[in-house]
Each structure stands twice: as structure tokens, then as C-alpha cells.
């Protein structure tokens, strides 16, 4: 990105002043190198978002921002329902509530090493993953609707996990006001056999080791220390979320003109929050969030069963569960005034600061755990929502590294076997049903996640707490 078009606010924030229809400025959080490497499309997209009706304060881009659809991936924007604010299906994305869940194991590397190969093989065998895979749970209409309303809470009631798991999930594992009736039969049919499946592409289940702790007090609150083994699950709302995204995007594209909304880019398709279409989308999207939460809960249950086989006394307690692609109604303070806003986070993590009443008691002093996924072979990070970030980004932070190379380029550059072998030499076991998938997800195809989290930390969005390194990776 050409930095001469930007006003530098601090070492880690850059502003695009309002111009040509922008209702608010755009603010990008990044250091000098990240901003220079950022695609010009991010400039265009973060600017376009600033033109949407009812946007509040600014259109934000996180340090891992890259070219998305309408909204940049790594985009955050809040809309006021009392000021003609909108909700955008493109501003949430196709993989609604894709997210990361971390589990404590109480194990160390030394415990894992003797069973590493068998553990990896068992996880690959038992967790449905990859193109064409189906889950073990098949929901009828009543079951589907109960799941869409109940989220992880439904899953726990159905025997997948423990009630205390819910304390460590955003919204206590269940988003209210989900409307299963607004979810089409097509979306439900697409999900019928996909509960408890990992998906494909960049989705994974990893066994990771905490290799460095930066903030010992927060790490203590989170229950982690150097040498700990953590399980990290990255997946979303599967076919149901994809279908809802697809259908509402089209409906919003077609109806935008009727609502008097001039779209700078078709992909920014949106509807007023108070319109029938806007309400219908919010109800369906919330059902998809619950679907993602239930899905990660079921995968947690399967993972626990696998681990019990190897470690009969083990408890895999949740550290936390975060979602990346959402639109949520949240209280915020703008210009000293309290208001309720619909915050879109597209490839961005909610990062509530210490004292936020919606955080579980245990995180009141630390702020919300922010789980940043790497790709196989690259590091993951745990951060904590920083005090004051409400005024910076509606309490949001980055979500991952982002690709530096397209899938096609990666597939041309590496062979799957070669990537697996190289990682094995570093002590990292990769298991997947597809060698092409491994090549496309090669560590070299991703940006350096360390630089992204450093920028998030320095910008004041979230504090670095710990760095983790993969030991086993099950690729979807």
C-alpha cells in the first residue's frame, strides 16, 4: 500500500481521511513493513466500508488485513440501528462464526512424545475432516432447529461435553435471538450430515506446545505456562453458514436499490438493520453462529474420547472459544455516550478489555483471551483484550497471519510429501487425507504471524500473552 495516501497517527496506526462519499475515516493498524506489504485492495475496501449508511467512528482494518469480499478480511465496522445503520452478509462472510477453541491438557511434551504417532493417527481416524466427509450425528428437522437455537448449550445437553465448558465460550455458548425459521431448507440440508466435521482448507485441529510466555500474570489467569500442551481447534459453521452467506448476499444485492442504498461494490450488499431482510439475516446468522459453536463442541467431545484412550485420567478443560466472522449487538461508548451497536468482525477477533461485564468472572482482570491461529508448522499466539481498546477498534483484534501466496502458487511450489517430511524433521507431525491440501497450506504460503501480533500488541488492541508451536496437526 502506498503510505503517501495515509496520515500516520502513531507508529502502529494509519488513517485514510474521509473523501468521496466516506462518512467516517478509515483506520488501519499496522507497522511500517506490514502496511507497505498490504494489498492496495485493502485501501479500496476499508474505504468503501466507510461509505455505508450508519457507520460509527471509523472503518477499521486489523494488522492481518487482506483483500476480501466487499469488506477486507481483518475488517471491523460498527453500525447504529438508530441512524439508518445496516447489516451486511458480505461483512460477516461465508464461514459464519469460523473460530478457534483452545483446550488445556495438563500434559507436557514429554507426556505426548511416546504416543505422538498413534495419537495423530487416532485423531485423523476419528475426527471427520476434508472434502466429502460426513459426521456421526444426523439431525432431523426438530433436532436441527434445536441445535440452531441452542448452540454449544444444545450440544452439552445432547451429551457432547460438560456444563462448565459453556463458561469459556463467547455468549456462554449460545447466541440468543437465533431464528431457525429464517434458515432455508437448502442450508439445513447442507448441514444435515456435517455436524462435528472439521471442514477443509485452512481448518485444523492442532496439538501445540507453549514455547514462550510474555505476560506471566495473564498467563497464570489463563492457566498456561511454558511447556504446556494445548489443543487448538479451528473450524466454523460448515455448509449451513456457507449457504446462509450465499443466499443472503444475493437477496441483499437485489434489494439494496429498493432500500435506497447505493453500493460502491456489489459484494458490500447490505440491508437496513431495521428492515425485514436485515432482521431475517440477523436471525439466520445467529443460528449459524450457534451451529459453529455446536460444531466445535462436538469436535471437542470426539477429541476428549481420543485423548481418554491414551490418557485415561485426563480432563480437557476449555481455555476459551472465539469466533472470527460475526455481527454482534454490543454496548459501546462513542464520544462519551453509551450506545448499542452492531459490530461486524470479518476475519477479526472480539477482544473485550478487562472489566467488560460480558466476560466470565475469571477473565475480569485479564481481559478476554484472544486466540490467534497460525498455519501448520507456524506459531499460534494467545493474547488478551487490552484496556482501552473499545476506543481503538470496538474491542477487536487480528485473527491470524493471512496468506502471502495463493493456493495455486503454493501447489506449484511444494509437494505435500515434501512439506510433511520437512515438518517431521522439526518434530511436527502432519496428518491429512489430502497431500495436495498439505502443499497448498505449506507454512511458506503464509505471512509471519509474529509481526501481526506484535503490531496488535503495540497498537494497544491486545496484549501478547504466550506463543505456541504445533506438535501434531490434523488438516481438514
Amino acid at each position: 500500500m502506498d503510505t503517501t495516501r495515509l496520515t500516520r497517527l502513531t507508529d502502529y496506526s494509519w488513517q485514510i481521511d474521509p473523501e468521496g462519499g466516506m462518512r467516517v475515516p478509515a483506520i488501519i493498524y499496522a507497522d511500517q513493513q506490514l502496511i507497505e506489504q498490504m494489498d492496495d485492495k485493502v485501501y479500496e475496501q476499508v474505504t468503501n466500508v466507510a461509505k455505508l449508511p450508519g457507520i460509527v467512528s471509523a472503518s477499521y482494518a486489523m494488522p492481518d488485513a487482506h483483500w476480501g469480499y466487499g469488506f477486507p478480511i481483518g475488517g471491523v465496522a460498527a453500525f447504529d440501528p438508530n441512524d439508518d445503520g445496516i447489516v451486511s452478509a458480505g461483512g460477516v462472510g461465508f464461514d459464519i462464526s469460523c473460530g478457534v477453541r483452545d483446550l488445556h491438557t495438563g500434559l507436557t511434551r514429554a507426556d505426548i512424545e511416546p504416543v505422538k504417532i498413534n495419537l495423530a493417527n487416532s485423531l485423523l481416524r476419528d475426527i471427520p475432516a476434508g472434502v466429502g466427509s460426513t459426521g456421526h450425528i444426523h439431525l432431523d428437522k426438530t433436532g436441527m432447529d434445536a441445535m440452531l437455537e441452542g448452540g454449544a448449550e444444545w450440544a452439552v445437553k445432547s451429551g457432547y461435553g460438560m456444563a462448565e465448558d459453556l463458561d469459556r465460550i463467547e455468549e456462554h455458548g449460545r447466541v440468543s435471538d437465533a431464528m431457525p425459521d429464517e434458515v432455508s431448507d437448502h442450508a439445513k440440508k447442507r448441514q444435515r450430515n456435517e455436524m462435528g466435521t472439521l471442514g477443509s482448507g485452512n481448518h485444523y485441529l492442532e496439538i501445540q506446545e507453549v514455547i514462550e510466555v510474555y505476560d506471566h500474570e495473564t498467563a497464570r489467569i489463563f492457566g498456561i505456562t511454558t511447556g504446556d500442551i494445548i489443543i487448538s481447534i479451528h473450524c466454523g459453521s460448515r455448509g449451513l453458514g456457507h449457504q446462509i452467506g450465499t443466499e443472503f448476499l444475493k437477496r441483499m444485492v437485489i434489494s439494496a436499490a429498493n432500500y435506497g442504498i447505493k453500493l460502491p461494490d456489489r459484494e458490500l450488499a447490505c440491508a437496513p438493520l431495521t428492515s425485514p431482510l436485515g432482521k431475517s439475516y440477523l436471525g439466520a446468522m445467529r443460528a449459524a453462529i450457534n451451529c459453529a459453536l455446536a460444531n466445535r463442541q462436538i469436535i471437542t467431545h470426539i477429541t476428549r474420547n481420543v485423548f481418554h484412550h491414551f490418557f485415561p485420567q485426563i480432563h480437557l478443560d476449555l481455555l476459551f472459544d472465539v469466533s472470527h466472522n460475526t455481527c454482534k449487538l454490543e454496548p459501546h461508548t462513542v464520544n462519551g455516550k453509551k450506545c448499542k451497536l452492531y459490530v461486524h468482525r470479518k476475519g477479526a477477533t472480539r477482544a473485550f478489555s478487562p472489566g467488560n461485564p460480558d466476560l466470565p468472572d475469571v477473565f475480569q482482570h485479564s481481559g478476554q483471551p484472544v486466540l490467534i491461529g497460525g498455519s501448520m508448522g507456524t506459531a499460534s499466539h494467545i493474547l488478551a483484550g487490552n484496556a482501552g481498546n473499545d476506543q481503538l477498534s470496538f474491542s477487536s483484534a487480528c485473527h491470524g497471519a493471512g496468506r502471502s501466496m495463493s493456493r495455486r502458487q503454493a501447489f506449484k511450489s511444494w509437494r505435500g510429501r515434501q512439506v510433511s517430511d520437512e515438518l517431521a524433521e522439526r518434530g511436527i507431525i502432519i496428518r491429512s487425507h489430502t497431500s495436495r491440501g498439505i502443499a497448498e497450506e505449506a507454512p511458506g504460503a503464509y505471512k509471519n504471524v509474529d509481526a501481526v501480533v506484535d503490531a496488535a500488541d503495540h497498537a494497544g488492541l491486545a496484549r501478547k500473552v504466550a506463543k505456541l508451536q504445533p506438535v501434531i496437526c490434523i488438516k481438514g
Partner: protein
Amino acid sequence: MKTNDECRWEHFSHEADMGIRGYGNTLEEAFSQAALAMTAVICELNTVIPLIPRKIECEAPDPELLFVDWLNALVYEMAVSKMLFSRFDIKINKSTLRATAWGEPVDQARHQAAVEVKGATYTELKVNREHDGAWIAQCVIDV
């Protein structure tokens, strides 16, 4: 992947995902070639045997929306039938598309399918006729 000068497909770069583009002598051919490009994002096209037919229909107010709808109808069929497709017979009459897609059930070991397609997007969406008379149909798909 050329079948003749006007009838071919290709991928184009998108930072996170993948662009697909089909060229044809007719609108139908361009749509068909783009669908081949989509399967080629998932796996090697020549591993998919066009064995079983599936009927697909969609309707949209303009050719670009119809193109996205066509791809999304295929994404849906792949997801629900757990199939991959490698041959397409398409008829377009104004705003309506009727097609038969030929393919087979996913076989992980043989197809080595790398990614599911989540949906076709309106990003870089273009359906039109070039100066030389060839049709082009393209967009970015989310994987």
C-alpha cells in the same frame, strides 16, 4: 486446458482465495468452462469421472447474477451429494439456466481433494462478450 482457441478455462490470483475464468464461443460454453475451473480448484480435473448426471436449474435477473447462481447451485450439489463434477451440458434461456452436471462421489484417496468451495462471490465478477466475439465468465470463489 484448451479445447479450442475460444473454449478454455484458467485460474487467476486472489490473495486469500481463487479466481476462476471460463472462455467460450457461447455464454453456455463460458459457464461450462468456468465450472471446470472450479472443480480444478478442488482437485485434479482428470481424476473426476463424469459418471452420474445431476440436474441443476437456476434463475437470476442478469447474466452476472446467473453465473454466480450457477456456480453456487453446483457448490450446493457437491456439498449435499458429496460429489465432484467434470462435465457440464448447459442451456440458457434469458434469465433461466438448465443444466446437467456429470460427476462421481468424492473418493478422498483418488481425488486428493484439497478444499471445499464455500461459495461463489461477486468479487471480480464479469460476464461479457469480448471484441473477438468470445464469451468470458469469471469471479472469485471462497475456499
